[in-house]
């Protein structure tokens, strides 16, 4: 499992269909045809909020996730990244830096 670049901008992949369920959500990757379970509602909210924040760390802060809950959510996000559910947002072209 890869470790996540939490100082980068992330988003829910556009290839993903997300279906709310009593336990959280079901994610389906239309290209790889993989089905992934998001096992808590907090995780679903977090995944949906990624695109609104400049970095993953900011999204975690905004959700009030710290300590052990932060660690467990980071682990869950890492496996979602491996499954292609979330992905790095394409970087906004920056001014050339010296």
């Amino acid at each position: 499992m890869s470790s996540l670049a939490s100082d980068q901008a992330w988003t829910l992949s556009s290839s993903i269909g997300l279906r709310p369920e009593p336990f959280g959500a079901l994610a389906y990757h239309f290209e790889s045809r993989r089905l992934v379970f998001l096992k808590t509602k907090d995780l679903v909210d977090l995944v949906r909020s990624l695109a609104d924040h400049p970095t993953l760390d900011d999204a975690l802060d905004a959700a009030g996730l710290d300590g052990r809950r932060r660690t467990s959510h980071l682990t869950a996000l890492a496996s979602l990244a491996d499954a292609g559910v979330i992905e790095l947002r394409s970087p906004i072209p920056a001014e050339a830096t010296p």
Partner: protein
Amino acid sequence: MTTRTPPLTEQLKRGLDAPICLTWELTYACNLDCLHCLSASGRRDPNELSTEECLAVIDELNRLQVFYVNIGGGEPMIRRDFHTIVDHAIANHVGVKFSTNGTFLDKEAAKRFASMDMLDIQISLDGFDAGTNDALRGEGSWAAARQAMDNLAAADFGEFKISIVATRHNVSQLDDYKKMADDYGAQLRLTRLRPSGRGVDSYQDLRLSHQQQRDVYHWIMDRPDVLTGDSFFHLNALGESLPGLNMCGAGRIVCLIDPVGDVYACPFVIHDEFKAGNVRDAGGFTGVWQNSERFLELREPESGGACASCGSFDACGGGCMASKFFTGLPLDGPDPDCVWGHADDALAAVDGSAIPRMTSDHSKPGARTDASVPVLLTTKRP
């Protein structure tokens, strides 16, 4: 070692707002008459859903966010509107995986499919060689399936699936099958034989022996890239659990829509006992899935029955409901293929006339019956 059922599976057993895995048999018409046909297909039903009704079902699946549908039959490509239905599904974000015997998958169809996204094709082949396959699926069916595979490969379709039902006669060929799939750049799918449809009659002659079940378990364990449709979870009693959800999803996360719109708990229980309603009912498919009494019952917690005292119950869950039902066994007891043989005595005691018959048989008149099984298969056993 016993594995604890993860809470997710418990939640799934209580049912979801929409199925995860939905099978839709488009027609009972088929050019073949396989001895183990789970839907006892052959003749078209005059009451088949019309094109408009099929498109409306797709719109409903889209609203329910059913991400993909497993289309089967009968032979689905026999329907004249097959392409219309598939195109409409894909245009509405309902992915399609369809099963075919390959007969009508000519070069032109292969090219068309190769140009589409969100489409998976699964070709059924129940013997590595023509002799083994045709004994079960009928004369010429091996050649037709291989031709379809060649057509898909030539059209650059990409990774299609070769689907095998494991029987007593073909399990010794699994390595050959795997090589065939690899040579095609295809994926192998191996599923369990259940005594459904015409399989009620052929089950005893085709089912795996206890030793063969053990061999299959290890063979799958060693090959995580082989798909199994989560169908062998009763083998988990043998040790480490196979990949997958490992539960009976009937009416909870799985269901079947049959060609006339009847909704059953799973493709292997086409029987009034497991019929929940019809997509033509006032509430449509959604109403049937969410409110039918039959499905709500299936989502109630189960008792383990005679399995509850078995040390393997957490891993095996007592096996497959359909297999118990169509062999006349109690639904809360051991699977007929229980790896510890705990169903053997009960099976031997079942009165043949008490075994439920399918309530919707579309076999062609004069379709091969159980009587022909030993003759055909003993002469061509590998």
